[in-house]
């Protein structure tokens, strides 16, 4: 199954209530799969092709504000269009899932894979001080698994969650273990679980307002402080990463998503030559696994981040190690994908011999 199809099947099985999207390469299989599967018959899930990415993310806002599990998917240029809505969703503290199957940019760029939306995904993306929880899958199985995880995290924190994938993971086919069918929540369960959701004012109860507007600067500051406290809690509780061969590593590769798959092969090639290489793969890009990188900085002789961009995550790695060890970046971009041999060569020249 393709990565994009795994997302779609996982959405139905996670008990998602609604998907709103707009076609864009390389992720159109998500809505195509959903439409073909008739989820309105399988679970009652709504699937709607919107007139634009802007409309799609705002449909997500409307459904999410009703306490429903709503999601959208797109690729880089479309995600740029969604940023207005994402900022409002973050400001109004609504839970939802946004999938970005990243392609090369800037502008219309290319339809080939890239990781050049790292900054946009992890530093906010739209206007205002906000963060998304960002999950970076490195396999089709993780595309599947992260859908339910994303909804769970989104509702735990009342915050949008982004799955930051790329054209490689979205398009490639792998075996996937399909999980159980979770039921969609009933309207009664939503009323019980989500006291903030607009479901129609109950007699004798206060009305519910979903808004990101607070004109009074003192109250807006309090709202921002509440958001910041939430992001801090995420940093304390939700960091996820995978550490491979880090125990005896002298040199560390740091990579996420499909780059981590390539780095795994590069690490094997290096180990076969006797080089003690480890791999740290951040799974959450926000919250970023800074602590483990800070610890590893005292154990290794150098780190190389490998990204399909001009050097974005490398800034977070440098912040985490705080000058304790040399950190370099190797990247291909514009839709080009590095080979394992290329990565090993970069490690040998930039870190080991450098």
């Amino acid at each position, binding site marked *: 199954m393709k990565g994009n199809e795994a997302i779609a099947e996982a959405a139905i099985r996670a008990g998602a209530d609604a998907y709103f999207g707009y076609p864009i390469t390389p992720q159109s299989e998500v809505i195509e799969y959903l439409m073909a599967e008739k989820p309105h018959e399988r679970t009652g899930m709504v699937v709607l092709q919107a007139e634009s990415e802007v409309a799609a993310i705002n449909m997500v806002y409307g459904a999410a504000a009703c306490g429903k599990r709503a999601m959208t998917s797109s690729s880089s240029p479309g995600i740029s269009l969604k940023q207005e809505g994402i900022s409002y969703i973050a400001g109004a503290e609504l839970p939802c899932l946004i999938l970005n199957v990243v392609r090369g940019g800037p502008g219309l760029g290319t339809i080939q894979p890239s990781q050049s939306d790292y900054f946009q995904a992890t530093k906010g993306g739209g206007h205002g001080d906000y963060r998304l929880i960002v999950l970076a899958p490195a396999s089709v199985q993780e595309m599947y698994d992260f859908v339910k995880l994303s909804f769970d995290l989104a509702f735990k924190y009342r915050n949008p969650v982004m799955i930051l994938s790329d054209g490689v993971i979205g398009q490639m086919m792998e075996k996937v273990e399909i999980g159980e069918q979770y039921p969609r929540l009933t309207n009664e369960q939503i009323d019980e679980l989500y006291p903030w959701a607009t*479901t129609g004012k109950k007699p004798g109860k206060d009305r519910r307002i979903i808004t990101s507007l607070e004109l009074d600067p003192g109250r807006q500051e309090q709202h921002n402080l509440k958001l910041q406290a939430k992001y801090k809690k995420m940093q304390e509780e939700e960091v996820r990463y995978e550490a491979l061969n880090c125990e005896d590593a002298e040199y560390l590769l740091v990579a996420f998503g499909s780059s981590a798959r390539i780095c795994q092969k590069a690490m094997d090639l290096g180990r076969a030559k006797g080089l003690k290489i480890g791999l740290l793969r951040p799974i959450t890009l926000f919250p970023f696994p800074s602590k483990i990188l800070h610890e590893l900085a005292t154990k290794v002789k150098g780190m190389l981040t490998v990204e399909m961009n001009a050097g974005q995550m490398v800034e977070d790695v440098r912040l985490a190690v705080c000058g304790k060890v040399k950190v370099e970046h190797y990247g291909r971009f514009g839709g080009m994908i590095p080979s394992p041999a290329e990565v090993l060569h970069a490690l040998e020249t930039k870190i080991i011999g450098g």
Partner: protein
Amino acid sequence: MEQNFDLPEIHTPENLVYTKTKVLTDNVMHYCPGCGHGTVHRLIAEVIDEMGIQDQVIGVAPVGCSVLAYNYFDIDMQEAAHGRAPALATGIKRVFPEKFVFTYQGDGDLAAIGTAETIHACNRGENITIIFINNGIYGMTGGQMAPTTLPGMPTSTSPYGRDVKMMGNPLKITELVAMLPGTYFVTRQAVHTPALVRKTKKAIRMAFENQKLNRGVSFVEIVSNCNSGWKLTPVQAIKWLEENMLPFYPLGDLKVNGEMVSK
């Protein structure tokens, strides 16, 4: 606090001919004196009250003068980004098809930045109610030119009057959405006389009742005045509205029960 002005008690049953509908909150409205927003808010609230659907309504507020509309209605509401209210309403209605969903939007929100969302929600035939306040100007931001500003009409961004050769023509979006197969009821009303207020209330009632039929969008335009933006007193503004706005935006039904009304 109890205040004693030594006035006779006038709140007696025989004097009580008019009260605030319970679907409006006690919050003091921020609208300028003479503005039509307050009247339309009240009509919507009365319709919700009379239909007994306060617990089944979800409203969507826009960006513009009525950005704080959710402070005044005692119902569940969502605040949309500028122009996106019909997309929010689509999302709400699709997951809650049994609820009553309405948007409340001004001309800049609905007919400029939100044109795509308006037209496509109408064309899809979303089973929602759209209340559209057209005063021909951007009120909240201080009187700039709107998509519905009349030819020759001065605003702060068309200080010598709207030059249609340079700035384009006013958009008759209500006529436009009436042409779409997804609209079921399209009408243009006004609220500057008591008779028109009563007619507008009937139109709003029909626009909400139609949601029970699941036949598509019910779209109610209300031509209103903006005394502050037009730089006129309320009385002058009503005269100006009648002499200038209504000839360009004639009142009446454009589409009823899915059929165009022939003029």
